[in-house]
């Protein structure tokens, strides 16, 4: 792997131990994936989490004197000012949240606290080379937007932000972006929930390949649909790039999607029945619920409006908390337009800057929760709350009844 004299000096510690650590990370990845060199980037996104692992890494770089050459946007942890009005955390948990904010401020990150940067807070252009972590953001920027990012971890994306460069391998290179697996879809894609279940099926089949989806019926996915699809394909598998023929920018035709290579026979045909079966394996739980949690990935303003429409002025059961986790700009818009106030009268609360996988939600653990996101259910399991997964309209009905049948 070729390094310039300046890059070698950083690797040897000539610009301090923080930048050295960051360069060691990029160099290790470059060697592992046979990168020929590093290339400059102007955009990065760090999947900050407020967990000890990623905060440790940011503090390690900060204490070694590193700051970001390219200020990355960041994922959420949790809104400590607002949510401590409702829920208790231990002093250690509160301290970790404070440490996280402090460390990322010191390193010079742009604290957007939003997990879907490609949708609105850090939108790359077609063909742009970037370093984006957050498993749902990477397939979005590659597949839906045609920007170029590898499946970065939070720590490699932060290293890229510090150095302002990323190793040139994988999805930065044309031939690695082409499809290598064909999946036919003959199913009715009604709303983003269906795209999520489709993504879960596709991730299981594709693993870390680049799936090409051929739809029997014409589909016109929007931002939330792409987001749900990619989030789930990167939960059940490690999909970072995909094509949808006639839909995504690098797949105007099936030939383009496969880059002129021989088009394989379909590895799978996904039908309404496949989706229903997948849903059944994911959603076995029923019973009394104590929480409905939406916003993994973060809800957009349109999704918040849809929640209001489905409630039809009915009220959340007294035994249920109903939380929408949104992009902070969307929460601000909801406040200005009084959507937030109207939803609060129905028992629906919203919060910005916050992830589902945080200690502030622990009072709900041990009981059944309900979400529209398989990703939410998957990661909450570790924290001891089983979740049922249903489409939004079913989540709303269950919230009103206090029970999922």
């Amino acid at each position: 792997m070729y390094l310039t004299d300046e890059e070698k000096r950083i690797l040897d510690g000539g610009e301090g131990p923080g930048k050295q650590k960051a360069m060691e990370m990029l160099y290790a990845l470059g060697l592992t994936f046979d990168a020929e060199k590093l290339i400059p980037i102007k955009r990065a996104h760090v999947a900050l989490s407020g967990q000890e692992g990623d905060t440790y890494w940011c503090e390690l770089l900060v204490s070694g004197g590193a700051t970001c050459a390219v200020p990355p946007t960041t994922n959420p942890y949790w809104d400590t000012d607002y949510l401590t009005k409702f829920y208790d955390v231990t002093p250690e948990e509160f301290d970790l949240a404070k440490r996280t904010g402090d460390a990322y401020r010191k390193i010079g990150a742009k604290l957007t606290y939003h997990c879907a940067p490609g949708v609105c807070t850090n939108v790359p252009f077609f063909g742009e080379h970037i370093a984006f972590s957050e498993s749902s953001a990477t397939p979005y920027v590659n597949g839906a937007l045609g920007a170029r990012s590898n499946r970065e971890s939070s720590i490699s994306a932060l290293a890229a932000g510090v150095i302002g460069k990323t190793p040139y391998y994988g999805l930065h290179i044309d031939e690695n972006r082409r499809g290598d697996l064909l999946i036919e879809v003959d199913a009715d894609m009604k709303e983003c929930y269906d795209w999520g279940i489709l993504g879960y099926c596709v991730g299981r089949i594709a693993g870390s390949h680049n799936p090409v989806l051929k739809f029997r019926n014409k589909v016109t996915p929007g931002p939330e649909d792409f987001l749900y699809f990619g989030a789930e394909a990167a939960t059940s598998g490690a999909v970072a790039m995909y094509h949808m023929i006639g839909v995504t920018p690098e797949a105007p035709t099936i030939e383009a999607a496969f880059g002129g290579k021989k088009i394989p026979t379909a590895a799978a045909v996904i039908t309404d029945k496949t989706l229903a079966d997948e849903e059944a394996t994911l959603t076995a739980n029923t019973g009394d619920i104590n929480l409905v949690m939406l916003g993994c990935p973060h809800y957009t303003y349109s999704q918040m409006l849809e929640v209001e429409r489905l409630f039809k002025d009915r009220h959340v059961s007294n035994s249920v908390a109903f939380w929408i986790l949104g992009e902070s700009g969307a929460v601000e818009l909801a406040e200005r337009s009084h959507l937030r106030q109207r939803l609060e009268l129905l028992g629906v609360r919203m919060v910005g800057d916050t992830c589902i996988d945080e200690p502030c939600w622990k009072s709900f653990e041990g009981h059944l929760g309900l979400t529209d996101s398989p990703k939410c259910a998957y990661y909450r399991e570790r924290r001891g709350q089983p979740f049922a997964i249903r489409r939004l309209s079913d989540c709303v009905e269950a919230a009103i009844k206090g029970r999922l049948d």
Partner: protein
Amino acid sequence: MADDMKVYKCRKIVKGSGCGEAVVSTDAMCFYLTDPQTGVVIERNHAIHGKSIANKILVLKSGKGSSVVQVDGFYQLWVKNNLPKAIILRDTEPVIVSSAVMVGCPMVDRMEGDPFAEIKDGDYVEVDADKGEIKVRKKS
């Protein structure tokens, strides 16, 4: 006895060496879905659900899932001394590599022969990343 051990070449990803009992995961793993106190895999429907990876030689298909909780999974096992002694990867992907780099967990890939055919649960395995060498003694 070293002479009953079969030797394979491999490629270093993260330097270091380790030896111990093999645990083989034919499924990709998200390390966050392990219990940091014991190293036991808690992901339902997973190939090694219920088995511990702590201080073992982990033969692993690949990494998967979130780009940050994988990091925390490694970190939590690291501070509790429950990381695998070394990891032999079949399909290499960036998130698991950077996680292993951060905590210095010895890691190799490109094993000569298919690791799933050459190594089974309970075999005794020595991994020397720096030499690019894996030694396997079959379980008797």
